[in-house]
Structure formats: structure tokens, C-alpha cells
């Protein structure tokens, strides 16, 4: 009996030793040397795996950061400059100043301004509706309102406003990952430079039709009358394809264009109420 036990123990020990020797050589042969800094950098990153940096996930981005000579072209919009500075400090590199961005919807066509002319009873999905026809209104550029962008957002920064049938972007939550921009088949979401106190002035319209048809389809459409272009002292406004565009990096938030716009397609958001004098001027002009 005792001999059986002994043989068992000896044979198992021999097997274990043999396996250990094989494993040692295999481990040597297939050794993967990984930079320990990748783990450290990954710990600093937000871990949302949203893909906003252009990489598949935070791990890939961490690898790219560690490998990179400079941080040019590498940015985590979710973490913003604080995260980028932190990673730069860890890796002994220099963080590049990146302007924070925010998503804005370039359409203000609520049912009140943009009446419905047909009814869509297909799948409530913007991509499918877009592939079939122009949409329920006469504007073929504006928001379809089936919420592909809301579904694409992984930060709960968007919701559909049922009254306006347009998506709303929550400034505090938006990290400018760009998922909604990619999801929108009409390409009407833009990432704009974030300003102080989240102030925004932009043309909330994407209609490239000429003034007449654009106005007929939607009361708040940009009709490319070029009044804003003329009033802007900072050359921030350009008009391409019957559509005005305000360059956020040149705009000084003087709000003259907003007062000048005859259709009200230029929106000003998060501003304090206008002073009386300005208000009066604006009224005289629009009458």
C-alpha cells in the first residue's frame, strides 16, 4: 500500500518537474514585453471606450500615447486637457493645448416653423428614413427627429424634446466625442469650439436651397440674404451654398448678426438678457 503511494508521489513530482522545465522554455520563447506605462496611462484615461480619440478603446489609445514621439494629433476629448496634461506628465512629454469642443445641432426646424407635408410610417430610424426619402417636411436638409444621435450618445448628454421634435444637447454632459456627428445621416451636428460660460452663436440651419424654397419649407431657415455677413466686423461669417456659417474661432460674441438675421436662424445661447438699448435697435431693424 505504502509503495503505491510512494510511486504515485514520485511519478507526479517527476511530471511536475518536466512540465515546469517545458513551461520555463516556452515562457522564454513567447515572452511579451509590455511597457508598464501603458497600464498606468490607461488608469488615468476616462475608461469610457467611446472611440472619440479615433482608437478602438482606451487601451489602444494608451498604447498610442506611450509609443508617440509627440502628442500631436492625439487627444482624448472626453478627459479634456486635464487628462492630457496628466498623461503628458507621466510620460515626460509636452501636452498640446486642445480647444474644448461641444456638439451643436444645425437645425431649428420645430413643427411650428417647419410644417409637416407628408407622414412617414416606416421604421423610426434616421438612417432608414434618410435612405428612403427627404423626410416629413419640405426641407431635405434638416433634422428627421428619429433620434439616432440620442441612441449613439454614451454619455446621456442628449435627449429628444417631444415638443420640438429635435434632439437637445446637454452642455454639461457633452464631451464632444463625436458619436452623434457620425450617427447623423443628414450631417447636421457640428463640434464647435466651447466658449466661456458655454455661450454659443451659430447658424441653426443646414438648408442649402435658395432663399425662396428654403423659407417656404421652414420659417427659420437661413435664406443666405448675407445681412449677417455684412454686419460682421470680424470676418467670422462666410456664405457657401446659400448657407451662412459662423467661424467659432473668429466670433467675438458681439451678437450683431443675431439682431440682423431676418429669419432668426442665428441662435444665441446662454447669454444674459440683452440690455435695453440693444433690444430697441434690434426691434427697429426687424420691423
Amino acid at each position: 500500500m505504502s509503495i503505491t503511494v510512494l510511486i504515485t508521489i514520485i511519478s507526479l513530482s517527476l511530471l511536475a518537474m518536466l512540465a515546469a522545465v517545458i513551461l520555463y522554455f516556452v515562457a522564454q520563447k513567447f515572452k511579451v514585453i509590455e511597457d508598464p506605462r501603458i497600464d498606468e496611462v490607461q488608469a488615468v484615461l476616462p475608461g469610457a471606450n467611446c472611440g472619440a480619440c479615433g482608437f478602438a478603446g482606451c487601451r489602444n489609445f494608451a498604447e498610442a500615447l506611450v509609443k508617440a514621439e509627440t502628442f500631436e494629433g492625439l487627444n482624448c476629448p472626453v478627459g479634456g486637457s486635464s487628462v492630457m496634461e496628466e498623461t503628458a506628465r507621466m510620460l515626460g512629454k509636452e501636452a498640446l493645448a486642445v480647444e474644448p469642443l461641444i456638439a451643436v445641432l444645425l437645425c431649428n426646424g420645430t413643427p411650428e416653423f417647419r410644417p409637416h407635408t407628408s407622414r412617414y410610417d416606416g421604421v423610426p430610424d434616421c438612417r432608414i428614413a434618410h435612405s428612403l426619402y427627404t423626410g416629413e417636411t419640405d426641407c431635405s436638409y434638416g433634422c428627421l427627429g428619429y433620434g439616432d444621435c440620442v441612441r449613439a450618445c454614451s454619455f446621456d448628454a442628449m435627449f429628444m424634446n417631444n415638443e420640438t421634435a429635435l434632439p437637445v444637447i446637454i452642455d454639461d454632459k457633452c464631451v464632444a466625442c463625436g458619436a452623434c456627428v457620425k450617427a447623423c445621416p443628414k450631417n447636421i451636428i457640428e463640434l464647435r469650439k466651447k466658449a466661456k460660460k458655454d455661450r454659443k452663436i451659430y447658424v441653426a440651419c443646414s438648408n442649402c436651397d435658395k432663399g425662396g424654397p428654403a423659407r417656404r419649407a421652414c420659417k427659420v431657415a437661413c435664406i443666405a440674404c448675407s445681412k449677417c455677413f455684412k454686419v460682421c466686423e470680424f470676418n467670422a461669417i462666410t456664405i457657401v451654398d446659400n448657407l451662412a456659417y459662423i467661424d467659432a474661432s473668429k466670433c467675438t460674441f458681439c451678437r450683431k448678426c443675431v439682431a440682423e438675421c431676418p429669419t432668426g436662424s442665428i441662435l444665441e445661447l446662454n447669454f444674459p438678457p440683452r440690455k435695453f438699448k440693444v433690444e430697441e435697435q434690434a426691434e427697429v431693424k426687424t420691423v
Partner: protein
Amino acid sequence: MKTFPIGGVHPPENKLTAGSEIRYLPVPHSVAIPVNQHIGTPASIVVKKDDRVKTGQVIAENKGFVSSNIHSSVSGKVNKIGTVPDTTGYKQTAVFIDVEGDEWIVTIDRSDEILTEINLSPEEIVKKCLESGIVGLGGATFPSHVKLTVPSGKRCDLLIINGVECEPYLTSDHRLMLERGEEILIGVTILMKALRVNKAMIGIESNKPDAIDHLTNLAKAFQGITVYPLKVKYPQGAEKQLIKALAKREVPSGRLPIDVNTVVHNVGTAFAVYEAIQKNKPLFERVVTITGKSVSNPGNYFVRIGTPVKNLIEAAGGFPDDTGKIVSGGPMMGKALNSTEVPIVKGTSGIILFPSNESKRMDSMPCIRCAKCVQACALNLEPYLLMTLSEMGLFERAEKERITDCMECGSCSFICPAGRPLLDYIRLGKATVIKMARERVLK
């Protein structure tokens, strides 16, 4: 009786206008003729504002091989080069012409005489088809001269003529076969000469016995043309299904009929070819069915290209009160219109006004894996799977499941007892996969 072996459905036929003779729709006051009425490069406009044009005059010339000429369908003055909505509602460049009289270009033979003698050589026929703007009138509007040019290294020994008209409601091809049978057969002979084949098969579904009898009798006088009745089954009018049904040849996935030595043309195209070659008449009008269950005066009309849909609806007695949807094309593959300003183009085979109680979609319910869609698919695909893959965004997998083979016939959506929007998602997935493949090639 012959038919294709896999899949297929039987939608209610509703051929309400099968007995109504083709009439001529009065020439409208103005037309808007889009320059992109065919698959391929849009034609480039050769007229300008205030030019006077005659009926049949070229107003836009083909650009490149896969393209086609566009002719004025009326005589009058060019009002403007503007945009007009197409069936999707998106704006397309079009030539607007204000009609003054109806003066045809002198070269067109307007007599009723039927000319049987074919004097042109095959090369001349192909050239004339290009000049006359002939495109496939079955609905796909592929330029016919491209199909008539057999690529080097390929061989063609069989011409198939599609007189199936498997879409419910539509009767334009049916009426054309009955009323212009001889012209169609001469057109077929011309196509045979151009392709240098001596055998042509005409496939007609057995729900059109009068057309089958008529063409069979006429075909006795023509060499090499045989008429075959086919068992009624949708989508028999699809090119690959028709080849399989008639010639028992299987076009492999991703290949063309010419790869199995076959070329398919529609009966409408054969008639247009006859008119172009024998009568010098370019393609500027076509037969369109206007129909619907509550339409007071449905019928088949020769309509000039560029006529707004609303003119045709007026001719049929105007909008019924209960109209829920206007569909351009057949009920299975047609498109719902959101404007009646949309012009009739070369590919418009019919306009259907559906009453509102018939135009509603079913509420979509969960898939119960009954596999009716798999049975219905004529291309051996698994629609329920393709839909899910597309919905989930798994496009690489969808590509492996051959989503690009789908011809969008809509049999799966039609048969689904749960009312699932199968085709909507498959179409989305197909478009995405094609885009992905194109980007891969560019890389």
C-alpha cells in the same frame, strides 16, 4: 409550366386595368425632364434658357459609356434649367420646357405603317440605341446599348424577353404586348441581330393568357422567337429569376447574366428599340399605368417623359377622397411619393393610389423564427438574420451572409407575419456594406 425553383410569394394580383386600352395622355402645358433618368453618369445639358426645342430633339447628351441621351418630349421653349424632386423627394437637375404646339423633328416617321425590314448592321443598331436614349424600361433603367455590347471574352447565345410583369396592379407591359405585339417582335428581332444570337425566349406569366396567345400566334412569322407561359410567382420578373425559370441557367452571386451567355430585355424596351430603329423615334414617351382600388377612371396611358404625376392623376379622375399613399412603380418595389410634382421618367411603370386603409404598415412584433422569410427569399438568403445583423451594426458578418445579393424585391417583408421591417434594415445594411467595400478598394 416553367418557373424559378427557390422562394417567391403570391401577392394579390389586382390587375384592374388589364382590359383598358392604352390612351394618349394630352401633352401637358409644361414638362420638367430630369437629366438623370438612367443608371450611370447623368447626361450633360446641351440646351439653354429660351432655346426653342422640338419633340424628339436631344436636350442632354450622354457622358461616358454607361450613360444615355435625353430628348425633349414636347416642342416649345426652354423655361429654365432648374431642379425638380424625384421619387425620393431630393432635388434633381431638370430641363423645364413650356409647351407650344407639338412639332416633332422631321426625321421621325409618324405613319402607322409597320416596318419589318431591318436595314442596319449590329454596330449601327447599338449606336442608334445610344443616340435614341433607350434604357431598360422594366424599372432599372440600365442603358440598353451597354447590354447590347457583349464584352470581349464573353459570348451571348440567348436573348430573353421579359414580359412577366409580376408586380401586382401594373398592366403597362401587358397592354403593350396586346396592342403592339408585332412591333415588339420586330424589336426582339432587332435585338437578336444586334447581339448576333438566333434564339429568343419571351416569358409571360400565365395570368395574361390573351397576351400569350396573341404573341404566340404572331411569333410564328418570326424566326427563332418562342413564347413561354410561366407559372405566376413574384419576383419572376427579376432578371436572375427569369433566366433560371426559362433557361435553367443560374447566374452566380455577384455576376451578370452575360456570364451565363444570356441577355435580358423588357418587352417595353423591345418596343422602344423598334420605334428607335425603324421609326427614328427616340425614347420620349412610355406606357404608364394609373390605378388604385378607389380611382374612378384607372387606365394605361402613353405619357410624355417629364409630365408631372398630377396630370396623370387628373386624367384618371383625380384623387379619391380616401387616398393614403401615392406609389410610383409597383406595390412591391415602388416608392411612395411625397409630391405630385414628381415627373414621369423613363423608369416609371405605374402610379398607384392606395386607399388609406390599405397603405398602413403593420406594427412590428418580435421575430418568432418561423422562417417564412427564408422560404420566400428567391436568392437563398436569410432575411431575418440579415435584418438583425444590420440592426446591430454587424456589417462585416452581414457581408459574409451575402447581403449585397439582395435585390430588394420585398418578398420577406410581404410574407412576415410579425410585420417586421425586414427590407428596410436589409437595404440599410446593403448600402453600408457596398460603401465599406468601395472604401476598401480605394485604400
